[in-house]
């Protein structure tokens, strides 16, 4: 039973890492741009297919494929911002957020038309097993852990220690005050899309290697969990999203542990996530890590 607990904890941390990293991008976009980016899931899909082209078609190793996917996805996110969303600024939260739904559908359909509906996989031996005492890891999971080990501290460092990161958090917290304080809000808007795209790129590769196989629906399948992470962490709170992603991943996996009153049926894992979301919105709408605002 303890072995099962250890395995579930590991699985939860890996799922949580994906949600945490992608959630940071989504929450910063919302906090700074006031847009709920529903195309975030499709950015993950795009990244997985860019990685596939570099890795499986051009024979590049996974590190190069990941870097290429991060770069390409960051540029795609920037293009969305510059070509579509920035010109439409001022149309309101609902309108611009709905536009991101359309953008997401377009990205998914383009991937579908170009790559086809069949399942794909990166060149990584998914049948191999790394036996680490009480837990067993696939090479894909090991890669995801390695990526998280680099990316999560890097994101935390960026947000906490760099001028850009501090400016991002300042704009997310209070756009007008940040502008008065001299922060170039426009420039920060550009950088936040690049960051969100890059993190989606990391997330896309992580989902692809952890899941083993993927198709054009890859990102859509995790989109709602990403938004649950954003709300759970407090909308606009980057640190909150980082923590909430791990919390959500762990809670969903550990809920199935047989030591926990027999364990929840696996099919109800997403239900648990949404139940947590509903309760949170009812009793702590600012999220676990957000600040309550009093007017």
């Amino acid at each position: 039973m303890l072995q099962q607990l250890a395995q579930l904890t590991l699985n939860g941390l890996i799922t949580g890492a994906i949600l945490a990293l992608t959630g940071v991008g989504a929450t910063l976009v919302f906090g700074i741009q006031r847009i709920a980016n529903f195309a975030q899931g499709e950015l993950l899909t795009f990244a997985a297919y860019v990685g596939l082209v570099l890795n499986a078609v051009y024979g590049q190793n996974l590190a190069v494929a990941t870097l290429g996917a991060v770069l390409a996805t960051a540029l795609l996110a920037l293009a969305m911002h510059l070509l579509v969303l920035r010109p439409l600024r001022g149309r309101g939260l609902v309108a611009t957020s709905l536009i991101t739904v359309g953008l997401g559908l377009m990205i998914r359909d383009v991937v579908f038309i170009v790559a086809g509906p069949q399942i794909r996989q990166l060149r990584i031996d998914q049948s191999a097993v790394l036996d680490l005492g009480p837990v067993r890891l696939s090479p894909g999971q090991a890669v995801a852990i390695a990526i998280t080990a680099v990316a999560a501290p890097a994101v935390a460092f960026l947000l906490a220690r760099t001028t850009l990161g501090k400016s991002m958090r300042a704009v997310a917290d209070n756009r007008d005050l940040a502008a008065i304080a001299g922060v170039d809000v426009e420039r920060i808007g550009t950088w936040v899309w690049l960051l969100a795209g890059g993190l989606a790129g990391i997330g896309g590769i992580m989902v692809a290697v952890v899941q083993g196989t993927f198709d054009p629906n890859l990102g859509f399948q995790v989109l709602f969990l990403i938004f649950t992470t954003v709300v759970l962490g407090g909308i606009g709170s980057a640190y909150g999203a980082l923590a909430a992603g791990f919390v959500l991943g762990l809670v969903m996996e550990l809920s199935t542990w047989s030591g926990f009153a027999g364990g929840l049926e696996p099919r109800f894992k997403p239900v648990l996530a949404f139940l947590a979301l509903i309760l949170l919105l009812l009793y702590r709408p600012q999220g676990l890590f957000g600040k309550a605002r009093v007017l």
Partner: protein
Amino acid sequence: MDLRRLLLLGAVAGVAVALGQGVAAAASDVTFDLRYGVLAGLTGDPAADGQAWNEAARLGIDQIAAALKKRGLSGVKAELIDSQDSQGTPQAGVEAAQKLVQIDRVNVIIGDFYSSVTSAVATAVAIPNQVLVFTGGTSPALTKLNTGPAALIWQPVAADDMQGQVLARIIGEELGKNAKINVAARNDAYGTSLSAVFKDAWTASGGTIPKFVVYNQQQPTLDTEAQQLVEGAPDGWLFVDFCQTFAKLAQPLSRTGKWDPARSFGSDTLNDCATRGSTNYPGMRATQANASSGASFPAFKALFEKSAKPGLAFQPFTAEAFDSTFVAFLAALEAKSAQPAKISQHVVSVTTDPGTAYTFEQLDQAIQAVLDGKKIHFVGATGPLNFSANGRVNALAYDIWQHKPDGSAAVVKTVAFQP
């Protein structure tokens, strides 16, 4: 030339003219335009299967149109009016079917192959508008929707209540009737209903099910489910899923080190994943109702590989869509009408004995026989069909497929089954 020879020649010519006039008369009083619509998940989760389903239906209708042109039956038309995307969801399926019925005015819908979509479309669109549906869905509940005077929902594939019993019988024969079988099923109408039928049949015959795991196939990872499925020291496994999503479960299952595909059985959708853009698992077996036992199945496969859109993988289950186009057409021809209610009255007639058997390769002769007023039995690529009046086929034989070490899959046995 003497007088007797001249008379004989005259008589022969007279008979020929009379016969010709008879055929012409028979053909000329048949005039209808049979309008087909295809409903399938062309994007989203079911896209790989849906694209192939659509293509199989198109190929069937093309064959019919070519045969009509060859015979010069200008009064009879068979047309694919439109193919609509259900996205594999009931809501999108209903909207797509409404377009097919209310705007395109189709008489026959080929699809959907998801039971959940077909069920919604049948109740919200097809039955109220009196349109025929040939579904690929396998839920036994679908044909129970036929409560009116004419059966409108036709199911050219054996329903799950039969397949579940067949699976229980086959697994019992292979692993013993008291074996412990862990069951994994996708969380939708197909997965839950088929696995429930199996559970009842299996436990009734003395078997046990230590773990019964219903999982959300759209979850990003299925590691936890895989862990649960190897618990309880099972003698074997049953999986009810589609190839695309089963791949997500198979990998973490392999990593447990406790899963043996050679002791695993799958539903009909897992019979040959390599042809569905996924991979096979050497040793794993799956059932399928007569899908490859039709005499014309190899010809259908060859036609698909030659004429389908490039890049589309052949999928055996699409033979159901292919067959359905011919059944609808021949029934319409016998009814001399494209009205769905009238076609419905003739579906059983053209797919059962007695009658001369014809496959799609002999469509020309089948058309002639129907025009001559003869009883025919259309034998599909999937097998003899044998539709009953309630809309269901009476498959009496099931193929057992097995995934091979070289990554292919083949039928290793065909078993008779009497419900």
